[in-house]
């Protein structure tokens, strides 16, 4: 049976081989390196030869004041990003859906999708310029009668800058999926609602929103699943010593401890903690979404 399978499908297996090799090397290779979290890394001895230290580095991490700080920051940044960043594209799609003038609609779409195509480095470069005390935001503060400060040097503003710029970049782009879900709603439903005496607002609440609810549910779950693993590039580009208090998240801490301070074993341990949390979230999200799609298909 196995031999026949090989004889018949060897060209297919040959074609899988490079991809399988990629996954073994680049995805499973690093998993072997996780051993370091339980070892005292000695560069000359390699991963295998380094002595075991058990859970020393986990204890060191959780006993340090940084553990609470980075976990809190990770949760808070992602929480606000979800609570504010998730509903806005839905509202935006609903508003856009009410525009009857096709040319106007297209123009708004093209313009609002555009920021999505600007690279992270450039977004952060512009943010640093705009948030400087003499930048665009400084000017707004001056107009409103305040004293301009360098916003990126104030820990209390970091989350707002992070979440705000994320919304600026993705508001339009994230609305695409809801917009297409809206266009697939049966127009007869709208007509029936109108005959029943519903105005535009009621039609949106009673027809549009229920129509895209499955899409909303799935995307929300997927987003929660990816919650703890997103966006650390932007944090590394924007934070500095003054804002670590609110800006330092688990992944940026892993980066700083490991790559900047060469504390490989400690960093691997914290990274493993992060990976495990991510894994739990993704598994939970997938379970729920599988159950939801099943029931919604009845």
């Amino acid at each position: 049976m196995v031999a026949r399978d090989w004889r018949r499908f060897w060209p297919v297996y040959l074609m899988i081989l490079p991809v399988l090799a990629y996954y073994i090397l680049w995805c499973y290779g690093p998993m072997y390196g996780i051993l370091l979290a339980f070892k005292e890394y000695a560069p000359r001895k390699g991963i295998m030869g380094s002595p075991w230290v058990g859970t020393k580095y986990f204890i060191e991490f959780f006993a340090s004041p940084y553990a609470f700080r980075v976990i809190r920051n990770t949760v808070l940044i992602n929480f606000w990003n979800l609570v504010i960043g998730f509903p806005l594209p839905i509202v935006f799609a609903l508003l856009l859906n009410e525009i009857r003038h096709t040319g106007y609609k297209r123009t708004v779409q093209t313009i609002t999708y555009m920021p999505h195509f600007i690279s992270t480095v450039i977004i952060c470069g512009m943010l640093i310029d705009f948030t400087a005390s003499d930048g665009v935001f400084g000017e707004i503060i001056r107009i409103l009668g305040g004293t301009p400060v360098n916003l990126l040097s104030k820990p209390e503003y970091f989350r707002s800058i992070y979440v705000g710029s994320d919304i600026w970049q993705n508001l339009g782009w994230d609305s695409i999926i809801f917009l297409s879900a809206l266009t697939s709603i049966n127009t007869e439903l709208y007509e029936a609602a109108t005959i029943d005496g519903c105005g535009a607002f009621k039609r949106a609440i009673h027809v549009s929103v229920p129509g895209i609810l499955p899409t909303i549910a799935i995307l929300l779950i997927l987003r929660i699943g990816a919650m703890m693993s997103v966006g650390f590039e932007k944090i590394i580009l924007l934070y500095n010593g003054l804002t670590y208090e609110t800006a330092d998240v688990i992944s940026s801490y892993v980066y700083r401890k490991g790559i900047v301070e060469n504390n490989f074993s400690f960093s691997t341990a914290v990274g493993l903690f992060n990976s495990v949390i991510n894994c739990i979230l993704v598994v939970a999200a997938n379970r729920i979404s599988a159950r939801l799609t099943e029931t919604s298909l009845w």
Partner: protein
Amino acid sequence: MIKQTTGEKAFSVFNYFLLFVISIVCLYPIWHVAVASVSDPLMVFSKRGFYLWPLGELNLRGYKLVMQNPNILSGFLNTLFYVGAGTALSMFLTIIGAYALSRKGPHWNRLVMKIIIVTMYFQGGLIPFYLLVKDLNLLDTRMSIILPIAVNTWNLIVMRTAFAAVPESVVESAKLDGAGDWRTCWVIMVPMAQATVAVIALFYAVRMWNEWFNPSLFISSKTKYPLQLLLREILIKNDTKSMTQLGSVGQSQQESYRLLVKYCTIMVATIPILLVYPFLQRYFIQGIMIGSIKG
């Protein structure tokens, strides 16, 4: 035609206006940088804040400085290489892998699929990844940018779904004509699923264009820097010294040119994308749709 009540008309007007404001907010930062990049640097330096129109005389000296800078040129060429070679390799691996995994007969396909899916749930983490690249002697090589991210699981699954949707009868008749799997993949499957192939290629290309983090870990010689990493030096780490060698000009003029060069660099690195984006917009949207149907 549905008759609108007064309230609905008022909402409609408000809605048009609101979306106008949102569009302006999306557009303004780019406009700001564009306008500042062609302004008189001294005036930009002394008057920050909002710009609607270039300050002073139209000035292209910043662009000249950026264009003359050998680092920017080499960054562009490097990125071009990484995008070209990286996308080609990614597409090659993704297409043959997706074809093979889309076949329903082979007994081991399900296991391979499981091996691949597991990596979506669990990753080794930053330091083990860094040490792997180091142990493979890939530090400071161009391969370290291309190889580790060659296959994207999401793209592989989307491509596999597209190949699986090609009618089995088409594959069967190709087999009867004597085409092996290799030929079937490239001559039948790829053209049949060309929309998805194009979208996936686009996604790989954009990802490589934006890549800066892995290069910042692995690449130490400036001659191999991709554009984005160079941009980080200029925009984030504020290192424009090498770019503004203006000889005998005064300190404040140096400072103002440094600012101008920043704006010009942003424009030079963004214009190519913003120029092609409206033409490719359709494909990107298609890509989101394909991905979401799968998800």
